[in-house]
């Protein structure tokens, strides 16, 4: 152990707190931010190694409220930006934040590809079923019949199912939680952060202005039920046969097909090589083949081959 003087002082919630959030009072995102702080405090990630990245939207203001290296990028492209950071900087802890419009609509294609590539980062989606920053338009998760400024008589398009999309896409950790259930939210955040690979947590986070009460059905204090997924304990008991195997993709789809509000917890988790690891294998092999040559040597031999 190093001496006390050399030991960095522990990272606290106070250190991580930046600007006061511009979210509306009562917004579900406040609880997401508070839970994120608490998990970072618990995991003691070095302060300078924390990197938060977001696109555009209410929840995408997240990086301004975390005192850490951060990026407020453009609408829908947080994941490819975060992919660039993750792949080139293995020393960092990369977090992406966003909402349903940013992640499932304009950035929907990037989600599939970050998932299939299994890029090592954690993505937290604050899903409120509505466009809040632009003041109430239909979102890709708005249920049929939801009345918005772009669908005054009610939404007619079938909403996407984020859990199915994530499992299908190939995300190696897929969980769902509720912004009013802070203890559960912290548990899944921690598991997501510790998971090596592309981990996604979908948080039902209420927009109290444009879609109040959207998630009451999942909130016991509002008369709903917060129904948790029971994961297999592999104890050979009779009850265990009924429990969820997180590595079973079909079981994850079945959970995702449940009637709203459905279940909460880890839908899917698998150990698959990350793109980061696979690329590094290629880089190491290439460096070895060159005998760790310098750039001048590599270019000199390349030019020689073209004479």
């Amino acid at each position, binding site marked *: 152990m190093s001496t006390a003087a050399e030991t960095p002082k522990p990272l606290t919630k106070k250190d991580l707190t930046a600007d006061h959030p511009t979210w509306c009072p009562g917004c579900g995102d406040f609880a997401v931010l508070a839970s994120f702080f608490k998990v970072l405090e618990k995991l003691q990630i070095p302060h300078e190694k924390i990197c938060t990245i977001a696109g555009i939207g209410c929840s995408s203001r997240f990086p301004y409220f975390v*005192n850490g*290296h951060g990026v407020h990028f453009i609408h829908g492209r947080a994941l490819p930006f975060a992919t660039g950071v993750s792949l080139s900087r293995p020393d960092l802890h990369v977090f992406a934040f966003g909402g349903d419009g940013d992640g499932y609509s304009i950035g929907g294609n990037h989600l599939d590809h970050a998932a299939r590539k299994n890029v090592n980062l954690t993505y937290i989606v604050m899903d409120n079923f509505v466009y809040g920053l632009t003041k109430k338009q239909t979102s890709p998760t708005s249920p049929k019949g939801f009345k918005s400024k772009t669908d005054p008589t009610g939404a007619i398009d079938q909403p996407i199912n984020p859990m199915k999309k994530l499992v299908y896409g190939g995300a190696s950790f897929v969980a769902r939680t509720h912004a009013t259930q802070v203890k559960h939210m912290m548990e899944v955040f921690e598991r997501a952060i510790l998971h090596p690979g592309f981990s996604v947590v979908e948080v039902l986070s209420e927009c109290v202005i444009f879609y109040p009460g959207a998630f009451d059905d999942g909130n016991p204090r509002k008369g709903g039920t917060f129904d948790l997924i029971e994961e297999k304990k592999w104890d050979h008991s009779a009850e265990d046969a009924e429990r969820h195997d997180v590595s079973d993709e079909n079981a994850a789809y079945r959970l995702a097909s449940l009637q709203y509000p459905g279940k909460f917890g880890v839908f899917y988790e698998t150990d698959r090589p990350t793109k980061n690891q696979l690329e590094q294998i290629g880089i190491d092999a290439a460096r070895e083949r060159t005998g760790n040559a310098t750039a001048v040597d*590599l*270019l000199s031999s390349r030019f020689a081959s073209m004479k």
Partner: protein
Amino acid sequence: MSPSATSDSPDRTSSPAASGVTELQNAVIRFAGNSQDGIQTIGGLLAKLAGRSSREVMTYMTIPSTISGGPSIFQVHLGSGEVLSAGDESDFLFAFYQHSYDSHIASLRRGGICVYDTDHVQEVKGDLDVLHVGIPITSATVEALGGSSRERGKNLFALGLVTQIFKLDKEKVVGLVSKQFGGKNEDVLRNAMLAFDAGFAYPVGDLLKVEYELQQGRGSAVDKVTTDGNTAMVLGLLAGGVRYGAAYPITPWSTIMEQLRVELPKYGGLFVQAEDELAAVAMALGFAYSGHVAVTGSSGPGLSLKMEALSYATMAELPLVVINVQRGGPSTGLPTSVEQSDLMQAIYGSHGDCPRIVLAPKNVADCFYIAVEACELAKTYSCPVFVLTDMALASRIEAFEQPDLSAVVCDPFLDLSTRGEDFKPYPLDGFTRHAAPGSVMTAGKYPVVTGLEHDEWGHPSANPGIHQRMTERRREKIKAFGATLPKPEIYGDESGEALIVGWGSTWGPIREAVERLRESGRPVACIHLRHLNPMPNGLEAIFARFQHVLVVEMNDEGLYGYGQFATLLRARYCDPKIRSICKTDGLNYRVRDIVARVEAVIGTV
């Protein structure tokens, strides 16, 4: 290079040697066939041979945009002096099919020689002033290979013929063939050599009536590098310190990303094929934000998709090298033809006020140097730097001297130094300096890089005064770079009737046009700009010395009669004598086209 006395171009001379062998100073050889015949391969081998023989070389090829098959040509211009263009007309035509003959016989100069495959070309025009030499290329190749290889190997047979006809150094050619095919299985190399030997031994001497020999080059004895523009660009990026990049495939950009994908891991870096153009530029900016010199690229349509993120790069002041290998547009347009119609897109093609650095290489060697410069500028000015190359440069092969690598190679350095209390990424009075993630901030306050307008510390601000000042700051830093640029070198007369202004891949033909015009007694000159935005200061002093300023571009004259660069020059200098020479036929400028268009303005003597 005229073997007979019918040459109409006095600058290309030949001298019958004592032995009765006709010495050529330069020769333009066009191979016309189908894309699967491997004519690019032999064209490339000839170009390489020229580089090894210290000759000048330039190539030109057309490739069909179909997946497989379709007419294709490869033209090689070999010379012992300075070769500036791929040649207006060919001296020798190798026609593999009837359609090749029909389409390209007009490109053969008067008195030229057409070698055609009698197995495929049934009808030749007897009334032309060309020497027709019929050779059963296909059946002779099949015979040489034992009749089992169908029509494969015709290209090597033709290479054998060329080696024989021009008395090229057979040993060197065989060495290049072995290198090209030696990596594959033994049968491939054996068949290649059988076809080559058959072509080399074919009794062609009597048919030609005259013997030819290319003069040795007068250049340095050092072997030159021969490669195409896209490869030179890749090497320039590597030399400039690029270690990370991302892109999406599109012709003719793809060969850059394919090479970077293979090369970068050798340097400890990585190139990612992204799911789309938007993801590609976002990933590249992720690399840049992480503290690396990064690259993305595409062709016109792909660049359109990247534009939102590129405006972010201007606002957040992130360094990025952005390459556009231009092709014919708009939309899918002419994917395998050359055009220079993305200049306005590079300079203005985005939302908001986005002053950008835009560069254009003039030839293949310059693709290397301009890539190095782009890396340096991106780092120094912390902004996106565009490089406008084009389809012609992408695929054209030229010979050039190897760059002094120890002088140009820049090893990247990831700066994660601790930043003090006074950290200010966007100072009003200095260069932009980001703290890459991983840097400790001693004040305990960490930066957020944003696309919102922000103050010197990077804090978002909608304050009108701040937006005004920061817009000025982003503009002034680009102007400051412009002030460092030297005035372009004038080639030709210091004053006179016409100044030709060019940019990009037209450098060679324009220069050769100036030479021809001056030989015919016209006082003309040209300048070629590599820095298009900002352009160097002081051009007005050069313009003032000429009666006409003619801007040669491969784009349309637009609604008001001026090409894209001419429009910018007129906007900057308000000089009515700046006029345009434009065209959009998807082909390179021929020297005689430029001469004729200039003469149309200044009059013929």
